[in-house]
């Protein structure tokens, strides 16, 4: 069995502030938390391997997408490194994978009690929904994996994130590494305890794989986005096929989910230039 891992950083045990996960303005805190992040990913790999997984692809999906401390990663996994991938956090998902893990994930923008909650680009995306369902990064990414028939098996992060995913995908094994108190505080497991829990959860997730289902949206897919600012909507409205629904709201519809996913990526890339 081949496993896809999309790893983010805000949902790592102990993380409660942007400094800890800010790779762009090198902060001493980042160096510490990227280790914890790497080790949570390693734990997920160990658990999966204990349950029989062979090939593993890890898509480093946080910030500039080159955070993993490669020295600490098992020698025989493949790592997807670097930014500006058209499918971003789920680049290179294809039907050859038996399942996917979301490690270190976080709540959707607007969630209560969700440390560092955001959806891709918080300065641009105020809210996003598909077919009327409010989406987190986990939802958006799960649907792209689902489009190629790959089910999500494991999610790790704070309780809000895990419960949010399990509400939409009840077959997903959840590992809660912290309880968020608002947006910038959390009661967390220690990194060592979180890593143990992730290892156990990963093994259980692989064992439960036969019960998991690919998550999909019905076609045609309707994407509705509320932007943070009107000037962003001014630009985003120009994307072919987009309709302006309000001063800060746009809508796009397409039969093909990958087209919708890329249109969403184009939205926050373009909106960030406003």
């Amino acid at each position, binding site marked *: 069995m081949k496993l896809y891992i999309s790893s983010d950083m805000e949902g790592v045990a102990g993380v409660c502030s942007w400094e800890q996960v800010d790779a762009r303005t090198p902060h001493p805190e980042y160096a510490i938390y990227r280790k914890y992040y790497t080790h949570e990913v390693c734990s997920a790999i160990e658990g999966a391997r204990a349950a029989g997984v062979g090939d593993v692809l890890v898509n480093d999906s946080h910030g500039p997408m080159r955070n993993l401390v490669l020295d600490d990663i098992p020698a025989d996994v493949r790592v997807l490194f670097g930014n*500006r991938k058209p499918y971003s956090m789920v680049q290179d998902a294809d039907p050859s994978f038996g399942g996917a893990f979301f490690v270190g994930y976080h709540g959707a923008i607007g969630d209560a009690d969700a440390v560092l909650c955001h959806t891709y680009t918080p300065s641009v995306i105020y809210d996003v929904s598909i077919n009327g369902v409010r989406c987190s990064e986990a939802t958006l990414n799960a649907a792209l994996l689902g489009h190629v028939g790959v089910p999500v098996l494991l999610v790790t992060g704070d309780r809000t994130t895990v419960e949010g995913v399990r509400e939409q995908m009840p077959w997903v094994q959840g590992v809660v590494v912290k309880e968020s108190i608002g947006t910038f505080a959390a009661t967390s497991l220690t990194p060592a305890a979180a890593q143990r829990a992730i290892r156990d959860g990963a093994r259980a997730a692989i064992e439960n794989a036969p019960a998991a289902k690919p998550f999909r949206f019905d076609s045609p897919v309707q994407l509705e986005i509320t932007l943070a600012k009107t000037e962003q909507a001014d630009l985003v*409205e120009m*994307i*072919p096929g987009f309709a302006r629904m309000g001063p800060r709201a746009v809508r796009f519809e397409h039969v093909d989910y990958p087209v919708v996913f*890329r249109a969403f990526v184009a939205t926050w*890339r373009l909106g960030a230039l406003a």
Partner: protein
Amino acid sequence: MTMKVFISCDMEGTAGVCSWNQVDPSNAHEYPTYRRYMTQEVRAAIEGAREGGATDILVNDSHWSMHNLLFDELGADDGLRILSGAPKPRSMGQGLDGSFNGVFLTGYHAKAGDSAALAHTMTDLVYSVSVNGTPCSEALIFAALAGSYGVPVLLVTGDRTIVTEIAQFLPWAVGVAVKDSVGYTAVNSLTPKAAQDAIRAGAREAMARTGDAKPFTFDPPYELIVETAGVEHADMIELMPEFRRVGTRAVRFAANDYRTLLRAFIVATRIGAAANPRA
């Protein structure tokens, strides 16, 4: 009888301009001088249009952040409106509609790839752009937008390269070449005063040609090919629906409606800037 003229004014084709420093609003040394010359050339075009019978004039400030014109230099004119600011969905062609009798393009410049002063097309990430196989300058792209409303271009001012190019497509338009380019950052130019006189006379003559001038259009369906400077720019543009990658540094967009095509081109030039290799 109303006679409405639309003026899209750019800056690189202003007399004396030969360097980005002169046209960069953040340059406190040179820009203030050349912004005044730009304004004075626009005023000359307005005066010539008035002498030729124009009753209403809309000037779309079309350079950089699009608020360059010095209002004090434009004179009191009840029939004059100024469109300032950016971004605008139709950019240099914002405000155009079928109510206009003609279009002036002032201060325009050669397209990316031409051997001419400050030659470019919209942004640095555009290596070339073509519509239906025809390589396009900004002037041609917006002439076709005017054409989509049945409005002809009457006047083009700028360096000789763009004036000569436009004469091939729009032989009825008056061209005023205020300078000859000597490569990318040098020009052999008229003085601002002489350029303004020539533009005023050209504008007056252009108004007299409204009867002969024809709207410029491409034939539908329309095909846009944008070649980008870097692979990373095409990566960004390709994210958008309906754009197709046709080369490592090339994207294609097709439409039955020219205004849809123009909008796609404008947004392509914008999203390409998201390809910041340092992020």
